[in-house]
């Protein structure tokens, strides 16, 4: 199996598998966030569940972290290898003639998303860990909504969110169908899945953006 993961196709498939997991996670994450617009209580309840359920905390969360780290590390490893495969560049290269901007620049949209995740970790995840496991403050199941609203007060953060999610959209616009292709499925070439992919890559980032903008305007 280690041979499999060293092979180009093995890595491609690993990238796709982690991508599927992350795309699934995005749906859950957005579903939870969206509730904050119409029901602070529901949002608190769901957040509390996610933050305290041992299965989520000690089984799913490490998998998620591993998925994120793996997807990024492998992405960079592959990018470096790919660059090594083309040392001398063309003087004139008309990539737009045969491929989309998104597909050619996954590394840049990926880096933008990575930068955002760093911010996100600083904003939420590190305070959370600190709150729960280091300082060990008592759990207040109603604190989440307030914290959320508080985060979207400064306009710079909202702008950073919007920009990051635009990059996420671009990343997904290629990544969604690409993951199917990597898995050896030609479904990504069919119209249905391409439309689902398009919808997904618009709806998911737009959803997060709406949440951010909503709280910015309504705090």
């Amino acid at each position, binding site marked *: 199996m280690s041979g499999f993961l060293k*092979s180009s196709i093995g890595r*491609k498939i690993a990238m796709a598998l982690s991508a599927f997991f992350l795309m699934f996670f995005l749906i859950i994450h957005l579903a939870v966030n969206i509730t904050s617009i119409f029901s602070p209580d529901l949002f608190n309840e769901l957040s509390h569940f996610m933050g305290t359920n041992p299965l989520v905390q000690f089984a799913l969360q490490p998998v998620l972290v591993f998925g994120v780290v793996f997807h990024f590390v492998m992405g960079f490893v592959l990018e470096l290898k790919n660059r090594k*495969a*083309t040392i001398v560049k063309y003087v004139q290269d008309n990539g737009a003639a045969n*491929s989309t901007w998104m*597909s050619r620049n996954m590394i840049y949209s990926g880096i933008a998303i990575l930068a955002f995740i760093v911010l996100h970790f600083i904003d939420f995840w590190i305070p959370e860990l600190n709150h729960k496991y280091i300082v060990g403050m008592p759990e207040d199941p109603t604190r989440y909504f307030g914290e959320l609203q508080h985060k979207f007060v400064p306009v710079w953060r909202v702008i950073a969110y919007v920009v990051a999610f635009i990059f996420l959209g671009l990343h997904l616009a290629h990544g969604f169908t690409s993951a199917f292709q*990597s898995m050896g*499925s030609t479904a990504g070439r069919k119209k249905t899945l391409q439309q689902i992919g398009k919808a997904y890559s618009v709806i998911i980032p737009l959803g997060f953006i709406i949440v951010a903008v909503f709280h910015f305007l309504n705090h």
Partner: protein
Amino acid sequence: MNLTLKIWRQKDSNAKGQMVDYKVNDISEHMSFLEMMDVLNEQLVNSGEEPVAFDHDCREGICGMCSLYINGEAHGPDRGITTCQLHMRMFNDGDTITIEPWRASPFPVIKDLIVDRMAFERIQQAGGYISVNTSGNTQDANSLPISKHAADEAMDAAACIGCGACVASCKNSSAMLFVGAKVSQYALLPQGQVEAADRVKNMVAQMDLEGFGNCTNTGACEVECPKGITLESIARMNREFVKANVKG
């Protein structure tokens, strides 16, 4: 028409190359691109200079020898053709045309616009065949029916001419379209089933060893492929690869 050509000149594999400008005049729009190159070379030889070296042979789009990156695209701006089938009517009077060799680390430049594509040969030697003796004592050709659909699909994959445009157009210099086409042809035919697992593993291993990049599904290769090989052959190769690894 009169044209300015910017052409990569490089004396041999060790030399440092550079782009050089040339002018050609009175080019007919009915000429093929390589005939225009012939005009340039005749001009260069007559003035005592060395002609531009470029690969070409059949000049009817089937041998896969010609390999120019023209104005930023493999085989130039037209679709479904090789460089030798590109005609000057695709260009306008006064145009500047940039002509470069295929760029990929596994395809080192031999001279000017000629690159070494031996990596493709080695990949095929790693498993691109069916191990059957050429004795003629095989079973009758009709003893094993093959569905028309499978035969047609195998033919579509087998249409690959191994020119390397897929690698040249890929931003990652990935050879997966080429290898996918070869794997697909045999994967679709019952004769290829016996060695299917070893074939895909060995060919992919050789492809990786040669230093080709990884496929990121940009799809540039299938757009530039002169023979219409599609990404489906890469998907099929991926499936075959997983199958081969699961079986162990």
